[in-house]
């Protein structure tokens, strides 16, 4: 279990044809943390670190086990509409948003839709743009155990790896399977990108931090550069000795980067 220093609560918010499962903790301005293809793994040390300066909202996306999927949510843009709906009903705007992997794609899409509702945007190893030189590694035809290993630079030195994935591995079923299914539903073809996204991102006028694990073996660092080029004024920060999941591998460093950026800009 996580040794949390922050009190957090479990909420179920009736919204948009479902009940959003969301953990809430900390104090300060609201920050919405959108998980990626790894799914919802509960309250993380990463949330803990962010919660020192902010009120963290960590939901499980529709379709990812803890939140059932309304029939109308079929794509990443639908997820973005869903979260704007949530923010609107909870009166949380303007809000800071951190998107991890696929969650980064959702966050980028949210920024395109209603930039006025987002104060700061952080995209972490985000899906959504097509690399020009490399390829997004095909996680859908790779045994999941191998995908997990590949998402870390060094599993042996990651307490989060040990905590979340070190035990028995359930190959079939459960909430993780539900999340993988939802990822396939939304991101199978075209694989992990929307070719219109970079063009649309040019309208975004939000202070934006892009963070990438320098050794990301899922989404090439090149995509971080493409995001940076697309969003006017965006900053790109690499985390050394870190793979696709900085939230697990470098939770403190990632939280410091995000908190620092949000305080400065």
């Amino acid at each position, binding site marked *: 279990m996580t040794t949390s220093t922050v009190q957090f609560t479990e909420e179920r918010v009736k919204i948009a044809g479902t009940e959003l499962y969301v953990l809430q903790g900390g104090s300060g301005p609201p920050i919405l943390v959108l998980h990626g293809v790894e799914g919802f793994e509960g309250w993380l040390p990463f949330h803990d670190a962010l919660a020192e300066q902010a009120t963290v909202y960590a939901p499980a996306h529709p379709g990812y086990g803890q939140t059932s999927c309304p029939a109308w949510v079929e794509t990443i843009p639908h997820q973005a509409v869903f979260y704007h709906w949530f923010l609107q009903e909870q009166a949380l705007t303007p809000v800071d948003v951190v998107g991890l992997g696929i969650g980064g794609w959702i966050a980028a899409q949210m920024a395109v839709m209603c930039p006025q509702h987002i104060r700061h945007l952080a995209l972490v190893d985000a899906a959504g743009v097509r690399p020009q030189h490399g390829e997004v590694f095909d996680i859908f035809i790779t*045994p999941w155990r191998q995908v997990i290993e590949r998402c870390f630079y060094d599993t042996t030195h990651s307490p989060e790896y040990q905590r979340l994935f070190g035990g028995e591995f359930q190959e079939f079923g459960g909430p993780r*399977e539900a999340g993988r*299914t939802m990822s396939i*539903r939304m991101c*199978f073809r075209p694989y992990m990108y929307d070719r219109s996204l970079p063009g649309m991102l040019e309208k975004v006028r939000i202070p934006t931090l892009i963070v990438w694990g320098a050794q990301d073996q899922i989404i090439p660092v090149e995509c971080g550069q493409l995001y940076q080029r697309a969003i006017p004024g965006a900053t790109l920060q690499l985390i050394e000795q870190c793979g696709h999941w900085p939230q697990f591998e470098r939770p403190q460093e990632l939280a410091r980067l995000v908190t620092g950026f949000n305080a400065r800009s």
Partner: protein
Amino acid sequence: MAHTQYYYFTEQPYTGYDPAIQGEYPALRLTLPNSLYDAKLASELYNRYHDEYQVADEAGFDGIMINEHHTAPFCMQASINITGAVLAKITRRAKIVMLGNPLPVVDNPLRLAEELAMIDCISRGRLVSGFVRGGGVESLANNVNPAHNRERFEEAHDVILAAWTRPGPFRWEGKHFQYRVINPWALPLQKPHPPIMVPGTASPETVVWAAKHRYPYIVLGSFLEQTQELIQIYHETAEAEGYEMQPEHIGYLIRCFVADTHEKAQEQGKNFFWQNGALNKQPREWMAPPGYATVNVAGIRRLRAISRSFDSLAYEEAQKNYQLVVGTPDQVIEKLRYVRNLLGVGHLFLWSHDGYMTHEDTVRCIELMGKEVLPVLRED
């Protein structure tokens, strides 16, 4: 079981590579480099297999079963409809039993309806149009979302049935398929439409779906006990639907090789293991990607005896549990009769060629089936 129908089947294996390389790849398909493919050999094999279909037609099989797989050396039929079209012209009596067209991977089911209608017309009404979901890997090979597999299967089926039976022109606004105009000028000869069959190996939902539509469900070589469970599901669904399941609603595919002597048959029967366990050696993510199935189909499929690597014990066991029937006509008659009667099937599909069996041995097997095995089974 005098009305049981008997069908000849081969997967049309491409044998021009060494399955021993299986250790180097996740599976002998999908990402297996096609630089190992020799089109000259493939050309010979296609033509040889077609010649053998003609022998089966003349030998008196009720039908010839064909199938389709993608990026799979164990099956050269990348398009079942092409084989079907060939059979329509080179055979005269046998039904052309497609088990089947993998509906979910098709992006234009209307085109499929047209092609099948052409085959039915050209063959003068001999088409049996089976539809399958296809294993998960077929979705990956065709880049069709595996999470939509069942929905696409059902909707493509509805499109095809509508195209065959509803007077056009009409519009289609479905979830996965939309058409301004459905109005094909190729309609099946058989009315209201060619018979439909649904094969499967494990998914209970598919059995239920088939039973609700009163389509024959064909179990593709699963273990007998598991097959009985699937048949029981059909039986119960039929009852709930208000009709009684008949033998014609159930079929079974069984590997069966016949030769003049016991020794010869035993030697040749080893060819069913020619891929040495590779048939179902696939990552779970290929066989059953997340969203593809509600049960652990991959786990169930791995249980199949024939998917083990070859050794004398595996060979013996596969014969003992009826995954394989190999022998002289008298020997196989007894075993086939047992399986047919145990399962109560109205359709028995005989997988009678595989691996490196020669043309001569295959032809002899088909002839022995036609002359000595089928006539006896038909008398029961």
